[in-house]
């Protein structure tokens, strides 16, 4: 389940979700924080303030702080300045929360997406299934490094965790 506007969301909560859909991941600037599945809740809490729950993809992901700042700035521009950002750790983020639209954007951007550890990948450039993993670690914590043995291009893969 990715974080989504529920049908009983208030108009304010809907407006916040819409705003967050335009906040992009600084490391993968085609993907919004909503598509990445890291926005876990938006609600007016008992303290009267607006709470936005964010979960980190990886414990050490350096983008997390930039994302928090971007969310605050985007909401401030909407006139919402008294926002509390909750860091949600449970349940831990999983790549299953990446939305279908998010997957398609990543693939169009040249980043393959591992749907499950057993499902074969296709090269995002030539579509060939003849690919090999060079390393389980890549340019950011969320990516692994692959190579296509047909077109010989290296490419990043969004890891399945």
């Amino acid at each position, binding site marked *: 389940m990715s974080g989504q506007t529920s049908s009983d969301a208030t108009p304010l909560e809907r407006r916040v979700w819409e705003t967050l859909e335009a906040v992009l991941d600084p490391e993968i600037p085609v993907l919004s924080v909503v598509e990445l599945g890291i926005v876990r809740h938006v609600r007016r809490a008992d303290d009267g303030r607006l709470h936005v729950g964010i979960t980190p993809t990886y*414990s050490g992901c350096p983008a997390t702080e930039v994302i928090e700042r971007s969310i605050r700035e985007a909401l401030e521009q909407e006139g919402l300045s008294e926002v509390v950002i909750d860091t949600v*750790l449970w349940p*831990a983020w999983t790549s299953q929360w990446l939305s279908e639209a998010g997957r398609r954007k990543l693939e169009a951007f040249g980043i393959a997406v591992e749907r499950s550890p057993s499902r074969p990948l296709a090269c995002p450039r030539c579509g060939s299934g003849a690919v090999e993993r060079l390393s*389980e*670690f890549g340019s950011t914590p969320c990516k692994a490094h692959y190579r296509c043995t047909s077109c010989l291009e290296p490419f990043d893969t969004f890891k399945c*965790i």
Partner: protein
Amino acid sequence: MSAAAESALPAAGEDHPRYVLRLADTSLVLGQRLCEWVGHAPALEEDLALGNIALDLIGQARLLLAHAGRIEGRGREEDQLAFLRDAPEFYNVALAEQPNGDFGATIVRQALLDAWQLELYHSLTASADERLAEIAAKALKECRYHWRFSCGWLVRLGDGTAESHARAQEALEALWRFTEELITPDALDVRMASLGIAPPLAVVRARWEARIAAALKEATLRQPSSHHYPWHGKSGVHTEHLGHLLGQMQHLQRTYPGVTW
């Protein structure tokens, strides 16, 4: 964590933050050690792998330090805890602070600790400390692929050339004595286990020993016969290496107190 969840914790006084600091410091010190490889690893892929693992460990350490500071209630935040404590106030296991040595020694140290963190965090997901259980569940996902990396290399080096086998075996002999404290409970471990905050270390020990024995067998490495020297890093008694590591890690904050970006 909510105030309600916080008050539901078993009363553990100073033991509780001390226990969380043990976990935090082990991740922080090991992460700092791995950072020394950045730009120096044998191949680009290994450089990226060690840097990525270090990043995960430092991220885990930050969550744990922040939690320790909160339950300690003395207003110390993660930066103060990381940068303004001296070696005797660090409670990491001494294995984590051992120098990198060659790539083989780094892999042996990493495999011994990855297997331990994997089993420990697995058990900690059931901790009575709700926040600690959440951090453990997050860290566990990362420890799984850390172990795949270090165990994979352990087997490749051990079951590789005569040279790589000899170096891996030598590192194992040198580091094995530091494994005793990973799996032997002291009084604090026992008190934390009785409150349900920590798992009984006997459980972690059995699973760690089985995991390591299987990996060493596949790597054709010989398990050293005894632990024979108990270190007490988790009580703040360290080898001489920790002071040097902290000297480098804390230099900036010690020289310019309160400095910010």
